C-alpha cells in the first residue's frame, strides 16, 4: 500500500522530528491525565467515607445542614430508627480527630487522622481487605484505612499510639491494628476506625474517660431491606423519629461545606485543560499538514489520488498520536506509582477514556481540515508555480 509506504518512509527518515512529536504528545497526555487524576484524588478526599459507607441512608440531627461534626444523636434514636419498616440495620458513626504519634512504641512522624467510632458488625463499620473486621465494642482495636497504612507503613498486629486532648490534658491511647480497610478520608484526612465504646472513651472531650451515660455519636448509618424504597423509608424515619433529617450518602457529601465550590473548580479546570490541549494538538497537526502543501501538490500533479494523499497523512497522525498517547499514559502510570502516598491520585476510567479519545480524534480531524484546504488548491499553485 503506497500510503503506508510513504508514511513509514517519512517517519523513519525524519526520526528526530517524529520522536519530538511523540514526546510532545506524550507530555501533553501526561499533563492532562496527571492534573485530572489529582483533581479526582482531591475530590475523592472529600467524599470517600460516604461513597464507601455501603449504606442507603444516613440520619442526621435536624437543622445542622447535614454537617457531620455538628450533628448529635443518641442511642434512643437508633432504637426508633431500627423500628421503622424497611430498615434492616442501623449503626452509629461518631467522628473525631486524633494524631498517631507512635507505632509499636517507636515514635512516628505524626499523622493527623479522623477517628471514627463504629459499632462492630453494624452499618458504618468498614469491611477489610486484609486482617479482621472490628469485633468487640470495647476492645482497644482499630481498623486503619489504606491511606494511613501506606503513609506510616503499619503492619497488621502493630500497636499504634494515638494522641488526643481531653480537658486540659494530652492523653495517649494504644490501639492494636486488626485490619486494613480501603481509603475512607473524611474532609481529606485519612481514617482509623475504633469500636464505639472505646471511641467514646478516647475521643477529644471536656472530661477524660467518657461522655457520660448516654453514648453520643454523630450520625446513624441505615441499611434497608432488599425491597425497601429509600425515599419512602427516609420519609417514614423523618415522620416517626423526632428531630432528625435523612439523606443518602451522595447528597450527604455533596452538601458538605465547600464541596460544590471545590468540585466546580476542579471540573472547570479539567474541562478547560482538556479543551486547550485538544486545541493545541489539533492545531499542531493542522500546521504540520499545511507545511506539506508543495509536496502534496507535487504528488497530485504526478497523478497521486486525493484519497492516497489523505490516507498517508492520516496514518502518520494516527501513529504519532497512538505512540504519544501510549507513552504518555504509561509515564502517568509510572509517575503515580512513584508518587508518595500523601499525593492524592485517582484514576477515573471514564475521564482517561474521554481524554485519550478527544486527543485521538482531534488530530485526524484537524489533519483532514488542513488536507481539504490543500487539496482544493490547484496542484501548480500548491507547487508555487504561476498557473
Amino acid at each position, binding site marked *: 500500500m503506497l500510503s503506508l509506504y510513504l508514511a513509514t518512509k517519512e517517519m523513519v527518515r525524519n526520526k528526530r522530528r517524529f520522536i519530538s512529536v511523540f514526546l510532545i504528545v506524550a507530555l501533553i497526555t501526561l499533563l492532562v491525565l496527571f492534573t485530572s487524576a489529582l483533581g479526582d484524588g482531591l475530590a475523592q478526599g472529600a467524599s470517600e467515607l460516604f461513597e464507601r459507607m455501603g449504606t442507603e441512608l444516613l440520619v442526621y440531627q435536624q437543622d445542622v445542614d447535614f454537617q457531620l461534626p455538628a450533628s448529635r444523636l443518641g442511642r434512643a434514636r437508633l432504637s426508633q430508627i431500627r423500628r421503622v419498616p424497611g430498615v434492616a440495620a442501623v449503626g452509629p458513626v461518631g467522628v473525631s480527630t486524633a494524631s498517631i504519634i507512635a507505632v509499636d512504641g517507636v515514635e512516628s512522624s505524626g499523622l493527623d487522622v479522623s477517628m471514627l467510632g463504629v459499632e462492630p458488625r453494624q452499618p458504618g463499620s468498614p469491611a477489610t481487605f486484609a486482617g479482621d473486621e472490628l469485633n468487640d465494642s470495647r476492645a482497644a482495636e482499630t481498623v486503619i484505612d489504606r491511606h494511613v497504612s501506606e503513609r506510616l507503613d503499619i503492619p497488621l498486629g502493630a500497636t499504634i499510639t494515638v494522641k488526643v486532648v481531653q480537658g486540659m490534658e494530652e492523653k495517649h491511647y494504644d490501639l492494636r491494628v486488626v485490619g486494613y480497610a480501603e481509603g475512607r478520608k473524611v474532609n481529606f484526612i485519612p481514617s482509623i476506625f475504633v469500636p464505639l465504646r472505646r471511641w467514646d472513651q478516647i475521643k477529644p472531650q471536656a472530661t477524660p474517660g467518657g461522655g457520660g451515660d448516654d453514648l453520643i455519636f454523630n450520625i446513624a448509618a441505615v441499611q434497608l431491606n432488599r425491597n425497601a424504597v429509600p425515599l419512602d423509608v427516609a420519609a417514614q424515619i423523618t415522620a416517626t423519629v423526632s428531630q432528625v433529617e435523612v439523606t443518602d450518602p451522595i447528597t450527604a457529601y455533596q452538601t458538605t461545606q465547600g464541596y460544590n465550590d471545590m468540585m466546580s473548580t476542579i471540573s472547570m479546570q479539567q474541562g478547560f485543560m482538556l479543551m486547550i490541549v485538544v486545541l493545541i494538538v489539533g492545531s499542531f497537526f493542522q500546521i504540520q499538514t499545511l507545511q506539506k502543501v508543495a509536496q502534496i*501538490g*507535487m*504528488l497530485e500533479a*504526478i*497523478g497521486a489520488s*486525493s484519497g492516497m494523499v489523505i490516507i498517508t497523512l492520516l496514518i502518520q497522525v494516527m501513529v504519532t498520536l497512538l505512540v504519544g498517547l501510549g507513552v504518555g499514559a504509561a509515564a502517568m502510570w509510572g509517575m503515580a506509582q512513584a508518587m508518595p502516598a500523601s499525593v492524592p491520585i485517582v484514576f477515573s476510567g471514564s475521564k482517561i477514556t474521554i481524554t485519550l479519545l478527544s486527543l485521538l480524534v482531534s488530530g485526524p480531524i484537524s489533519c483532514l481540515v488542513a488536507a481539504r484546504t490543500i487539496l482544493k488548491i490547484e*496542484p501548480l499553485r500548491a507547487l508555487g508555480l504561476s*498557473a
Partner: protein
Amino acid sequence: MSTLEARAVSKIYEMNGAEIRAVDNLSLHVGEGEFVALVGPSGSGKTTMLALLAGLLQPDVGEILINGNSLRTMGKAKLAAFRMTSIGFTFQANNLVPYLTVQENVELMLRLNGTLDKKGRARTIDLLRRLDLGDRLKNLPSQLSGGQQQRVAIARALVHEPSIVLADEPTASLDTGRAHQVVSTLAKLIHEQGRAGVMVSHDLRMCTYADRVLQMEDGRLTRVLTDRVEIDALAHVTHAEEHAEAVA
C-alpha cells in the same frame, strides 16, 4: 503512438472584474519523438499552457487531446489516473519527495502505477546511470545539487514510459553548464524513446535542443520556428547578447 494536441485552447481568469486571457486561442500539435520548446517572457501564459496540456487545469474554450483522448471528458479521478500512466512531469522546484532516496523518488512513479517489478527497478537504475546518477541512488534530495535534482526529476518523468513528457522551466535554478546538460539529456531521451515532449522555458539558449520553438506573448502564439538554422540563431543570438552584457 504519442501525440499531444491542443485545439483552439483558451484559459480565462477574472481579476478585479477584469478578464485576463492567460492562454488565448492557442493550438499546437506535438508528434512522437518530437521535442517542442514553449518560450516567452514571464506572464506570457507558458506555465498555464503546460498545466492545460497536463490536465491540471481545464480550458474554458477548446480541448486537449493526448493520443486522441480528450481530457475534457475525463473526471478528476480518471484524469489523475491518466496523468499517472501517460504523462511524465518535471517542475522548476519542489520536484522530489524529500524523504525518499533518489532511486525511491524515481520508483515512486512505478509504485503509483502499480508497475514496480524487477524490470521497473532495473529500468530505474539504468535511467539514473544514463543521467550520471548511478552513484547517487541511495542519496536523499537534500544531498544533491540543483542539477542532480533536476536529472532525478527527469528520470522520474520518463521511468513509467509515458506518451507525453512535460517540463516546466527545468533549468530555472541551474548554472549554464548544468542547464545545457539537463536539457540535452531530456531531449535525447525523448527522441530515443519516441515520446512527445514539451518544455516551457524562459531561457532561449535551451531552444537549441528543441525540434520546434513556439513563442508566446500575452497568451497567444506569436511565432513558430521549425527551421534548425533559425532555432540555432535564436539560441546563439541570445547567448551572444548575454555574453556581451556580462562582459559590459
